[in-house]
């Protein structure tokens, strides 16, 4: 028996070591290297010196970095709200007694499987040519020029494209949540006069809070890391009004000679993501306990 125990232990160790080594090589080591570069003035080539906390101090006084954080957080917050409200409505509709349920669910999930870069290019054309042409036809002058070329409105375009794809995902998660609500809950609620909005607020929603949490975490994390949509729609413009954090790090870090500085930006971004994710999980698990 103990011979077998040894064999088992050895096998587990032989599985773990190479896989863990691979993970450390391509996740932990680059993470540490990134953190180390953040204390240098490295430009991506040539020699470099240690500069201590210089990059971090500069980071907090850099207007462009500050602007990208404001844009990214605004985008993430607004898109998360829009996506979750619309997804919940979609899920309720798709979960009601309708015909061709399978077809509708399949069709509404479609946007999510398409690559976000190409979706971005398609919507880029839509915002640049179709919307202004429609506006001219109907006389809505405020939309007669592309929203993507307006520094104050371009983020709305990015928001719409992010939402178009994310709603598909969040809807099917809400549907699977709604399916966990037993039919007799509604029947019992119906006897107490809980119908419509009341039924949703007091019966349905509390029961699907775990799914709501999943969607919130998914949304916030994905939208904070937004990249493909930016590259396809605005390339950060106009006037750097839609530069997401990932896009700024990519653009200035990879080819803009700010390897060290953007590494510091990436470290701060990493900390922000961890703090937000942990806070969300703490918050949602405490909510679930209350119920």
């Amino acid at each position, binding site marked *: 028996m103990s011979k077998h125990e040894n064999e088992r232990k050895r096998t587990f160790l032989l599985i773990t070591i190479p896989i863990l080594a691979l993970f450390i090589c391509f996740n932990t080591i680059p993470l540490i290297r990134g953190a180390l570069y953040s204390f240098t003035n490295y430009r991506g080539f040539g020699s470099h010196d240690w500069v201590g906390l210089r990059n971090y101090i500069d980071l907090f006084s850099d207007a462009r970095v500050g602007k990208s954080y404001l844009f990214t957080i605004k985008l993430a917050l607004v898109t998360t709200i829009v996506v979750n409200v619309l997804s919940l409505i979609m899920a309720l509709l798709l979960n*009601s007694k309708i015909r061709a349920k399978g077809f509708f669910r399949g069709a509404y999930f479609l946007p999510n499987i398409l690559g976000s870069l190409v979706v971005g290019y398609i919507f880029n*054309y839509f915002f640049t040519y179709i919307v202004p042409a429609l506006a001219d036809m109907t006389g809505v002058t405020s939309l007669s020029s592309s929203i993507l070329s307006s520094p104050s409105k371009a983020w709305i375009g990015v928001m719409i494209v992010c939402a178009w794809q994310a709603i598909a995902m969040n809807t099917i*998660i809400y549907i699977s949540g709604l399916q966990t609500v037993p039919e007799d809950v509604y029947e019992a609620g119906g006897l107490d006069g809980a119908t419509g909005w009341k039924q949703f607020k007091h019966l349905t929603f509390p029961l699907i809070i775990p799914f709501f949490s999943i969607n919130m975490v998914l949304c916030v994390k994905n939208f904070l890391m937004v990249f493909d949509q930016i*590259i396809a729609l605005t390339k950060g413009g106009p006037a750097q009004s839609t530069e997401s954090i990932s896009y700024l790090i990519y653009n200035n870090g990879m080819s803009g000679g700010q390897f060290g500085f953007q590494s510091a930006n990436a470290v701060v971004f990493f900390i922000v993501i961890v703090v937000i994710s942990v806070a969300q999980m703490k918050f949602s698990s405490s909510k679930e306990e209350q119920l």
Partner: protein
Amino acid sequence: MKKTSTVGKSNRTAMVLLILGLSTIIFPLYMTVVIAFKQPSEMTNSISGILSLPKVWSLDNFREAMRVTDFWNSLKNSLLISVLTVGLSILIHSLMGYTLGRNKKSKFYNFVYLFIVSGMFVPFAILMMPLAKQTAEMGLANWFGVILLYVVFYMPMNVMLYSGYLTNIPLALEEAARVDGASTWRTYWAIIFPIMKPMHATVAVITALAVWNDVMTPLIIMAGSSENTLPLAQLNFQSQFGTNYNLAFASYLLSLIPILVFYVICQKQILNGVVNGAVK
């Protein structure tokens, strides 16, 4: 009687809303198809000019787009990377998930589990600059390096899924095999690996979708290799399309077709996989 009539009514409202809502999905796709088939001369600045059906359904744009973007080569790279990543993920992540799931009482393995799973919080933004350097130094600035990176990036999620699934598989199954003298390694491949089939499907779907559509990793790692994946080709050849939107849209449509076909064939598995991956 009254009850059935209200149910019937709400059905109809839901139906109408759903059909109307469908236009938000059909319209962009319709626009893509129509523009992809037209000639630049058919495109006027008015809505009807852009959205009317093409006069001739010609495949010329697609032929030209295939030539400009080196379509078949990009498709081959995308397929190669996706298939190998999915295969390796199923093999490697299930093994790791099994090992960690079966050693929940060990401090060491619990630490390894947390260590790997916390990799989920690491944004690609912090890894990309060091990884671009590192893969170049290691001679991995190519499709093979991209695959290795994907196996690492999706490890946290997939290991969590596998080790979670394992709690439903009784240890007794393995112990029976042990009595027959089979080693842990053999028992795994003969008994546990086949039992985890539903989880393999989930992992395959979420990994495949993520890899197939990813732009950032190949953009950063394969930049110098003059090879493209399908999405990367759209980005790299954007300037060559110029203002010939018909050519550009033909290329977009071509790049969407493989995943659309896959979705039509495996819709059920994809929906199940995506839900399982998110909810578990």
